[in-house]
């Protein structure tokens, strides 16, 4: 039966946003249902998760049946994507609220609500910052809630809207725009003529990759539950863990080795993985962005290792700590291998030099078309080429100088777009740092938190290191500001900033007649 049937009370509501949100909520409800099944193993939080599933599913179902896709313009696309992420994150907080996850004795309800929202947004945006820890350890939670946390990251990693496009062929040409607005990077490489087939490819590779990581982690010595949970947050480069000490809990070289490889692959462009599968040939090394990405990680690791050795840490321990932390921050995963506060893996206890290098990696991020956050290697490369070109143009004012990426010339409109993106990114970092600092945080913790949130990294510097809880490091308003930045960063800034344009236009159009009548009446 066609989904575009007539409703008993008239035509369906023509709204792309409502339609996409409805479908996305159905997917979120499926995730919650899966967590409910896991919760049923020991019976904890079953009612909370079940209720959240029902509420989310019901709202999704109603929206999906009441609305139909409509406008295809850019403002409508941004509105659809931005609203989807916002609503999914809001309703995603329901399980935490209903299960009383953050309802520690004596805490006001507003803070409980804020913490639930923060954890949900951090999950869906694949940031991996957490308010667990201290008086409310992660280990005290039941398997249902723990699995739900990991699933939020997994859903956020490849993108909820990509899922929607996969099953909603009725979106037609706006499907590409939706994926484009949600995907990290500068555009979507079509893997197939149909955009829904492309979406299926992306999710297929993502799911297969997750399974491989789970098997690898299980083989390296993790229990089955933890292996699956960590695979979900590794493939999505999210960084949530089922332990307070994150990967440091196991203190295992083999687990860290599996994770390093997995994080590196998660931070690479998924189009490269797809091409590899289709052509049965590894072609990653031909991609200039991937080469730059690996070179940066290698240089960062070398630099941090040397600085740590210079500080008196043994070579083996330095190399292990350096490579894990550079990769985890360079891919925006945000796992920690610290075995405790002040241990070798706790980078906030390192000297300033290596911390400064890590701060740079908080900005860089992974490749375009990956699940990673941050500015992205390609943008940095193009930005550097653009800067070099502009400087050269001074010496050779009449020369036609092009920006190149490997053998390809980058179109001018793309160069301008990247330059504009970096300007907006820089302004957000500066303004965000000022706001978070004004809310009672010191400079390093504020700047680290803002850069980490905007780049969806997870742990930050200062008081918000890998062993710290964000609940202790930031005040509640500051955490909310960081949560907003996480969403802005996950959608690569513009969709969140422009999501209100379409509703504004709609309201403006609807009230125009009324305003004209009012004005005429006043003149009379």
């Amino acid at each position, binding site marked *: 039966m066609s989904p575009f049937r007539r409703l008993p009370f008239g035509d369906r509501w023509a709204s792309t946003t409502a339609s996409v949100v409805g479908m996305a909520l159905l997917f979120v409800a499926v995730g919650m249902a899966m967590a409910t099944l896991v919760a049923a193993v020991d019976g904890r939080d079953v009612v909370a998760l079940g209720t959240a599933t029902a509420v989310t599913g019901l709202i999704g179902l109603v929206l999906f049946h009441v609305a139909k896709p409509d406008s295809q313009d*850019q*403002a409508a696309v*941004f509105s659809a994507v931005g609203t989807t992420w916002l609503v999914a994150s809001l309703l995603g907080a329901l399980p935490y609220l209903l299960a009383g996850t953050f309802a520690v004795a004596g805490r006001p309800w507003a803070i409980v609500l804020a913490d639930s929202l923060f954890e949900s947004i951090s999950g869906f945006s694949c940031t991996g910052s957490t308010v667990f820890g201290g008086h409310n350890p992660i280990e005290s939670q039941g398997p249902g809630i723990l699995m739900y946390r990991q699933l939020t990251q997994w859903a956020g990693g490849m993108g909820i809207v990509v899922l929607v496009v996969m099953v909603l062929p009725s979106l037609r040409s706006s499907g590409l725009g939706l994926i484009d607005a949600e995907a990290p990077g500068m555009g979507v490489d079509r893997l197939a003529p149909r955009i829904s087939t492309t979406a299926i490819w992306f999710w297929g590779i993502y799911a297969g990759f997750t399974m491989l990581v789970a098997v690898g982690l299980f083989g390296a010595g993790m229990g089955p539950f933890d292996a699956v949970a960590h695979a979900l947050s590794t493939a999505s480069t999210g960084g949530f863990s089922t332990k307070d000490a994150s990967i440091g809990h196991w203190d295992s070289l083999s687990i860290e080795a599996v994770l390093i490889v997995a994080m590196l692959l998660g931070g690479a462009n998924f189009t490269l993985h797809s091409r590899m599968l289709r052509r049965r040939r590894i072609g990653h090394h031909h991609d200039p962005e991937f080469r730059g990405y690996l070179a940066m990680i290698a240089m960062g690791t070398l630099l941090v290792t040397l*600085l740590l050795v210079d500080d008196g840490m043994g070579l083996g321990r330095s190399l292990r700590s350096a490579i894990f932390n550079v990769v985890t921050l360079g891919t925006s995963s945000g796992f920690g291998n610290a075995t405790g506060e002040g241990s070798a893996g706790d980078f906030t206890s390192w*000297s*300033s*030099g290596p*911390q*400064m*290098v890590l*701060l*740079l990696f908080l900005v860089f991020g992974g490749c375009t078309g990956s699940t990673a956050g941050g500015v992205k290697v390609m943008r940095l490369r193009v*930005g550097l080429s*653009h*800067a070099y070109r*502009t*400087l*050269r143009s*001074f*010496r050779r*004012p009449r020369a036609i100088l092009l920006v190149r990426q490997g053998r390809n010339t980058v179109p001018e409109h793309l160069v301008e*777009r990247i*330059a*504009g*993106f*970096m*300007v*907006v990114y*820089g*302004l957000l970092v*500066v303004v965000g*740092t*000022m706001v978070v*600092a*004004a*809310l*009672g*945080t*010191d*400079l*390093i913790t*504020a*700047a680290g938190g803002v850069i980490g949130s905007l780049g969806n990294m997870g742990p930050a*510097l*200062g008081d918000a290191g890998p062993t710290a809880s964000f609940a202790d490091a930031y005040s509640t308003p500051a955490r909310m500001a960081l949560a907003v930045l996480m969403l802005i960063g996950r959608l690569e800034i*513009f969709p969140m*900033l*422009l999501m209100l*344009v379409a509703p504004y236009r709609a309201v403006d159009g609807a009230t125009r007649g009324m305003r004209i009548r009012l004005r005429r009446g006043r003149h009379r």
Partner: protein
Amino acid sequence: MNRPVRSELRPRSGGGAPWPSWAAATAWSIAAALGATFLLAVTAGLVDLLGDGDDTTALLVVGGAAGLMAAVIAVWVRPPDRIRDADVLCAFAASLVLFIGTVTGLFLLVDPATSLVDALFRAGTSATTTALEANPVDPADHAVRFLVGGAQWLGGIGALLLAVAVLPFFGAGREFADRSRRGGRRPMAPDPATAVRHLFVVHGLASAFTLIGFLLVGVAPLDAVLLAMATASTGGLVSSPDLESAGAQWVAVIGMAIAGTSLVVLWRLGVGRARSLLRSAELQAYLCLLIVGSILFLLWTDGSGVDGIRRAAFTVTAAVTTTGFPSTPGGNWAPAAPVLLLGLVSIGPMTGSVGGGFQILRHRILARVATRELLRQLHPRAVIPARMGGRIAAEDTLARVVVTQFLFVSVLFLTAAVVASAGLELATALGAAVHAISTAGPVRTLDGTLVDVGSWPGGVRLALLPAMVVGRLSVYPAIVALGAGMTLIRDRVRFRRRLTTSLGRTTGGRRPSPGTAR
């Protein structure tokens, strides 16, 4: 781009072919640095007579020699027919570096006990108007005190020359230069030579008014001169107990505010065209920054009463204008207060002023680029010009400002990384890097306490020096000069060609055919 050289600079008689653009620019840069050294050394030598006068002879001799060399070079140069923009910028950067070198020599001359690193750092902080040292000089040593003050004042003039007479004509932002004679008005900078003349008049008057202000509130004459120099140049590197008095601080606040104002604004005030000034968005932003910054600072430092207001105005104006007069914390500072000061320092004052930082006009251009990018997301094919103050900014200007921001942040992070690697705390390293590239001081800890950079290891202080020079040169010309210098060295050394020749191949990697003449 090549530009014709003014006829006054051309040789009046025969006597040799014109020099290449780069050679003439290099020679002029050396002459300018030596000329400034002459002025500084001779005046410092005369000022030293007010004290013990033991350095007078040495300073007069060295200054005279520098002046003679400058004159010889200026006469010797055969100006080129056309000069390249890039060569002008390179010459400007080279003259600043040379000036720092000669001032270092003067410091070593008058105080042989000073180490080379100390002298170089002091010369760098003075000439780039970066007041990173808390208590730099012995108050009894007149020659050294004047060298510090004079180097700051000359450095300030250099910054103004760059902002008013060099960048608008040979760099980015030509469309924003004050050239229009519409409506019978007298423009500030119709051409580079007039711009330089007007600059000296306006800056000289501003310095004189500040000096009179300090004298009126009872500051001793020599201290008043040094304070006026440090204020008008936004240098801030001065050791005078008089600056603790309320009257002197209020005069300094006004002096700093004037120094942070665009020279074009001051020019228009002077020629009686002030009516339209209040509509200037940049001036509004500058005043807003000073007022809102002071209010926020007052709130976050539990200051109260007239003393609190004065202290807030003094500290915030010193930060916005990148003067960096030291002021001790007056109470418990909230964590946001040092962050606010750091933010204000990096924003900086108006473009076309003596101050450093990224400056307000560039921030406005960045904001416009950001807005345009947001609009482009909605209308990808729209042509959206960026208007600033009624004028459309050229795409070149926008690109260069964006690249300047990129370079500003890159130099900042690089400096912070080097300084942090030397063992400083992360917050202090970042703070020092921001202050160095913004040419402002002093560095503060997270609770607002002043840090004495003078006590840091020599390596750390030297690592800050390139950032100061880059910041004083508004980032862009410094990088252009660096690139040009590297190209020059590469062309002279021709390492690759030598290597290929030694391997028996030509540059293109092809072997010459047997009949080809070499």
